[in-house]
C-alpha cells in the first residue's frame, strides 16, 4: 500500500458500517432486467457508454480493414464503388459520430464525479436518456447499412451530391438522422458535464485544483454546446430539402451549396478538438502519476486548453480553401490554423518538462502516452502544412490529408485513450490488465499504425486522391498501398489483443486495490470498483493532488442523508458548500422516452408527419418521467427540517 492512500485512510473519519450499507442501498440501481433498464447510476451508464462506443470503434475499424483490403492492390475488383462509398462513409461517420466524441463523454461520465468527489453526475436520468438515444441512433445506422441503406455521400455529405437529385433513396436521410441522434446525445452530455463540474465538486476543490482531465472535459463541453447546433441545423435543412422539397441548398431557388460546407465545418473542425482535448486530459492525468510528481505548469496548461477551445472556432475554412473564397479571408484562416499549434506546443513542452524533472515508472499507460509525442507531433506538423492555403491546394483531398487526420486523431486521442483504459481499468473493475499483453498491444498498434498511415503521406504527394475505390496499376501507388494495408491489418490484430486483455483481466487480472498506480487525484482515494455512492463520506480537498497531500483538517463532510439520494452542491469558483440537494431515483422512463424519440427520428426519415404524430408518445413519456412522486417530495421536505 502506498503512502498517499494510507494517509487518506488513516485520516478519514470512518463512517459506520451501517451508514455505508445504507448509502450502498440508497444509491444502488435496482436488481433484475427491469432494474438494469432503469439504471441511472453514472458508473453503470458510463460503463455501458464506454462498451457501446468501443463496439462501434471495432465495427468502424472492420469497415476500414475492408477498404484497405480493396486498396491493397491496383484495379482490385473485390468491392465495387457502390459498396465502397458506403464503407468509407460508414467508417468516417462511425468513428467521428459514434466513437470518438461519445467515448470521451462516456469516460468522463464515469470518471468526472469520482475525480471531483461527487456521488453522481448532475441530471442522472437525462444521462441515461442521452445514452439510450446514442445507442439507438447507432443501431439505426447499422441496421440501415445492413439493409443496403448505408449512407454513401461521405461523412461530410456535401450537397448537391448528398441532395435529393444525386442521392436518391433514403441513404443520406439515415445519415442526417444519425447526426440528429448523436448530436442530441452529445449536447445533453455536455450540459450534464458542465453542471457537474460547476456545482458538484467536493468542498475545497477550487478552480485551480480541478484535475486537468476535468478541465479538458469542461472546455470540450462548452465547445460542443457552441458547435453542434450548427451541424444539427445543417442536417435538418438537408433532410427537409430531401423530404419536403425546401431549397436551402438549391442555387436554382436562391439556396447555396457552399452554405452546407460552412455550417458543416463550423462544427466539423471544432469536433476534431472535442476528440483531441480529452486526449490531452488523459495525458495530463497519466504523465504526473508515472513521473511521480505534479504536472509542470498547471496554470499554463489550463490556459492552453481554454485558448485551444477558442481558436478551434476560427479555422473551419481551411477545409474549403479549394472553393473560390476571397484571398484576404484565406490568409486570416491560414494564420488562425497555424496559431492553434501554439497552445498545443505549450502543453507538449510542459509534459516534457514534467517527465524531465520526474521519476519515471514505465507501465503500459505511459507507453501509450509516449507514443503521443511521436505521432501527434508529426500529425500536428502536417496540420501546419495543411493550414497554408497554397500548400493545401496541392494536398487537400489527397491521402496526405488522410494520413494527417489519422495521425492527429489516433495519435492525439486514441493512443491516450488506450493508455487511459489501461490506467483506469483497475479503478473500474478492481483488477489490473496484463502488462505483457499490454506491451504486445502497444507495439503492434504503434508499428502497425505508422505502417498504415505514414505511406499515405507519400501517396498524397504522389497525387492519390481520397475516396477512390481503386487506382490504375501504372500510377506507382501500388507498393505504398500494399504496405498501408499490412499496417492496417497489424492494428486489427493489436485491437484484438486488447479485447482479449480486457476480457481476460476482468476475470483473472491481478487485484488492484484502491490505488494501484499511486495516483494523486480523488478517484484513487475510494475503493476499486467504487461503491454505488462513490464516497462513503464526501472528502474535503486541500490541493490539486489531494491523495498526495499531507493530512489537513477538515478531511470530510458530514451531514448528508444516508437513506435518501442526496448530494452536496458547492459554489462555482471556490467550491464552498452551497446546498444539499435531493437526487432522482432510477426509472424506466428515460428508456421509454428514448424509444419514442427514436420512433420520431426514424419515422421522419419517411414522412414529415411522423414529427407530428410521434410527438405525442414522446410527450407522454416525458410527462411520466417528470411526474412528481408524493413520497419523494415528503422525504425531501422532512430532510429540510432534520437531516
Amino acid at each position: 500500500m502506498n503512502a498517499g492512500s494510507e494517509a487518506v485512510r488513516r485520516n478519514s473519519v470512518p463512517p459506520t458500517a451501517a451508514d455505508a450499507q445504507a448509502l450502498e442501498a440508497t444509491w444502488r440501481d435496482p436488481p433484475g432486467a427491469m432494474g438494469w433498464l432503469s439504471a441511472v447510476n453514472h458508473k453503470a451508464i458510463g460503463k455501458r457508454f464506454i462498451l457501446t462506443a468501443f463496439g462501434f470503434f471495432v465495427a468502424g475499424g472492420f469497415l476500414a480493414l475492408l477498404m484497405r483490403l480493396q486498396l491493397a492492390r491496383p484495379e482490385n475488383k473485390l468491392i465495387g464503388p457502390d459498396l465502397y462509398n458506403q464503407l468509407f462513409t460508414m467508417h468516417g461517420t462511425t468513428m467521428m459520430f459514434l466513437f470518438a466524441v461519445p467515448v470521451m463523454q462516456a469516460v468522463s461520465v464515469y470518471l468526472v464525479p469520482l475525480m471531483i468527489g461527487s456521488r453522481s453526475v448532475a441530471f442522472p436520468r437525462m444521462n441515461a436518456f442521452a445514452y439510450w438515444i446514442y445507442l439507438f441512433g447507432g443501431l439505426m445506422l447499422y441496421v440501415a447499412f445492413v439493409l443496403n441503406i448505408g449512407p454513401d455521400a461521405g461523412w461530410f455529405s456535401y450537397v448537391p451530391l448528398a441532395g435529393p437529385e444525386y442521392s436518391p433513396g433514403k441513404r443520406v436521410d439515415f445519415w442526417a438522422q444519425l447526426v440528429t441522434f448523436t448530436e442530441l446525445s452529445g449536447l445533453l452530455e455536455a450540459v450534464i458535464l458542465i453542471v457537474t463540474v460547476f456545482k458538484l465538486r467536493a468542498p475545497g476543490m477550487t478552480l485551480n485544483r480541478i484535475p486537468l482531465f476535468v478541465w479538458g472535459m469542461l472546455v470540450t463541453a462548452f465547445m460542443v454546446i457552441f458547435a453542434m447546433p450548427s451541424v444539427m441545423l445543417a442536417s435538418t435543412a438537408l433532410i427537409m430539402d430531401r423530404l419536403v422539397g425546401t431549397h436551402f441548398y438549391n442555387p436554382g431557388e436562391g439556396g447555396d451549396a457552399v452554405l452546407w460546407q460552412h455550417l458543416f465545418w463550423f462544427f466539423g473542425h471544432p469536433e476534431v478538438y472535442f476528440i483531441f482535448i480529452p486526449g490531452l486530459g488523459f495525458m495530463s492525468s497519466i504523465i504526473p502519476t508515472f513521473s511521480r510528481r505534479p504536472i509542470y505548469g498547471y496554470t499554463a496548461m489550463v490556459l492552453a486548453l481554454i485558448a485551444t477551445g477558442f481558436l478551434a472556432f476560427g479555422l473551419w475554412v481551411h477545409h474549403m480553401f479549394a472553393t473560390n473564397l476571397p484571398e484576404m479571408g484565406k490568409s486570416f484562416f491560414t494564420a488562425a490554423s497555424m496559431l492553434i499549434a501554439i497552445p498545443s506546443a505549450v502543453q507538449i513542452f510542459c509534459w516534457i518538462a514534467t517527465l524531465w524533472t520526474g521519476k519515471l515508472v514505465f507501465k503500459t499507460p505511459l507507453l501509450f502516452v509516449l507514443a503521443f509525442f511521436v505521432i501527434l507531433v508529426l500529425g500536428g506538423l502536417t496540420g501546419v502544412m495543411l493550414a497554408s492555403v497554397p500548400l493545401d491546394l496541392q494536398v487537400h483531398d489527397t491521402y496526405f490529408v488522410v494520413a494527417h487526420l489519422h495521425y492527429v486523431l489516433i495519435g492525439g486521442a486514441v493512443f491516450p485513450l488506450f493508455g487511459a483504459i489501461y490506467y483506469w481499468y483497475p479503478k473500474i473493475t478492481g483488477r489490473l490488465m496484463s502488462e505483457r499483453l499490454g506491451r504486445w498491444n502497444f507495439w503492434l498498434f504503434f508499428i502497425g499504425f505508422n505502417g498504415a498511415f505514414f505511406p499515405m503521406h507519400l501517396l498524397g504527394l504522389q497525387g492519390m486522391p481520397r475516396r477512390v475505390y481503386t487506382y490504375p496499376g501504372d500510377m506507382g501507388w501500388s507498393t505504398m498501398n500494399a504496405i498501408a494495408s499490412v499496417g492496417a491489418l497489424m492494428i486489427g490484430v493489436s485491437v484484438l489483443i486488447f479485447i482479449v486483455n480486457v476480457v481476460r483481466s476482468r476475470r483473472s487480472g491481478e487485484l488492484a486495490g484502491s490505488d494501484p498506480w499511486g495516483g494523486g487525484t480523488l478517484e484513487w482515494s475510494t475503493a476499486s470498483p467504487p461503491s454505488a455512492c462513490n464516497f462513503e463520506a464526501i472528502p474535503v480537498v486541500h490541493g490539486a493532488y489531494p491523495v498526495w497531500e499531507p493530512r489537513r483538517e477538515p478531511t470530510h463532510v458530514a451531514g448528508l442523508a444516508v437513506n435518501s439520494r442526496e448530494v452536496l452542491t458547492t459554489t462555482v469558483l471556490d467550491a464552498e458548500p452551497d446546498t444539499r440537494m435531493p437526487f432522482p431515483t432510477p426509472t424506466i422512463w428515460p428508456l421509454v422516452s428514448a424509444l419514442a424519440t427514436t420512433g420520431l427520428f426514424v419515422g421522419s426519415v419517411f414522412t414529415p408527419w411522423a414529427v407530428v404524430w410521434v410527438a405525442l408518445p414522446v410527450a407522454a413519456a416525458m410527462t411520466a418521467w417528470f411526474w412528481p412522486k408524493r413520497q419523494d417530495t415528503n422525504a425531501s421536505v422532512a430532510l429540510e427540517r432534520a437531516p
Partner: protein
Amino acid sequence: MATSASTLRWLAACGSVVLAAAVRAEPLQSVLAPAGPQAAHLKDLWDVMLLVCTGVFVAVLVAVGIALWRAPRADSSQRASLPQELGPQRGARRSVLSAVVASTLLLLFLIVASVFTDRALARLSLHDALHIEVTANQWWWEARYDDAQASRMFNTANELHIPTGRPVVLTLRSNDVIHSFWVPALHGKKDLIPGRTSTLRLQADQAGTYRGQCAEFCGYQHTTMALLVMAEPPAQYEAWADHQRATAALSQEPQAARGRHIFMTTTCVMCHSIQGTDASARRGPDLTHVAQRQTLAAGALPNTPENLERWIRNPQHIKPGANMPPSDLPTDDLKALVAYLGSLQ
C-alpha cells in the same frame, strides 16, 4: 521569400532524403515534379515547410528522448514529490518559455512564407492568355476552347492540349455536383461548384503529358475521372487546334460508313456529338476527333479498338455507375461502329 525558398531547397532535399527520394521516383501525378511556374512556387513552399517541420519534429523527439534517458526510474509505490518540494524549477521554466517563443517565431515565419507564395501565384501574367472553359460532368471533363471569333471555338473532352510558355486561364464550371480540377504538375486544386464560376491560371514550361483527376468526391466514378494535359510547343499546339476546328474527314471505307449510319440511328446520337453530322447531343463527350485521344472514358482504358468495343458493349463492367448504357447491338454492327469511331482522326 521566393529567393530564400530557393536557397533553402537543397537543404530541404538532404534534410529529408528518404521522403524526397521516395516521392521523386513517381512523376505521373506527383506534386513534387512541377512543370510550370505555379506548381514550382508550391514546390518551393513545400520544401521550406518540410525543412522547418522536420527540424521541429526532430527537436521534440530529441527532447523527449533526453527526458526519458536522464530522468531517474521509480515504481508506483514510491511517494510522489509535491510542488513545495520541487521548488521553483527555473531551468525548466526557461527552457519551456524559450521553446514556446521559438515555435511561435517559426510559425510566424511559415505564415509569411505561405502568404508570399499566395502573392506569387497571383502574379502570373495573363498576357495573350489562352482561355479554356472546362465543365465537369459525372464523370468526365468537357473543354471548350474560347476565341474572339466564335467560329474558331471548338469542343473536346478529357484531354487538354496547351502551348508551353503561354499562360492559360481555365474557367471552371460544373453541370451536376461539386468536382475539383487538379493537375498537380501545373497547379493546385480548384473546385467546380454548380451555379458558380471559378477560374484557375496556370502555365506549363516544359512540354509533356501531365495527368490530373477529379479531387472532390463526386459519386460512383470519382475514381475514374482523369484528364490529361498535353503541353506542346506553340507551333505544334496551333496545328492541333486547327485540326480540332476542322471536322474529321469522312472515311470512304464501307464498314465505317455503315458504322456512321448505326451511330446516327441508335442510342449513340442521343448523347454524343460529332461535328459535321447531325449528332449534336451534349450529354457525353464530343467525339469529333475521338480516335486521336489516348484514353477512353476519362482515363478508364487506353484508346484501342478492342477496348472501344468492350467499352461500348458494356461500360458498366469497366466503369460501374457511369451514365453510358450497355449496348445490345449485334456484334457486326458493333464492329462497324468501332470502325467508324476509329476513323474519326
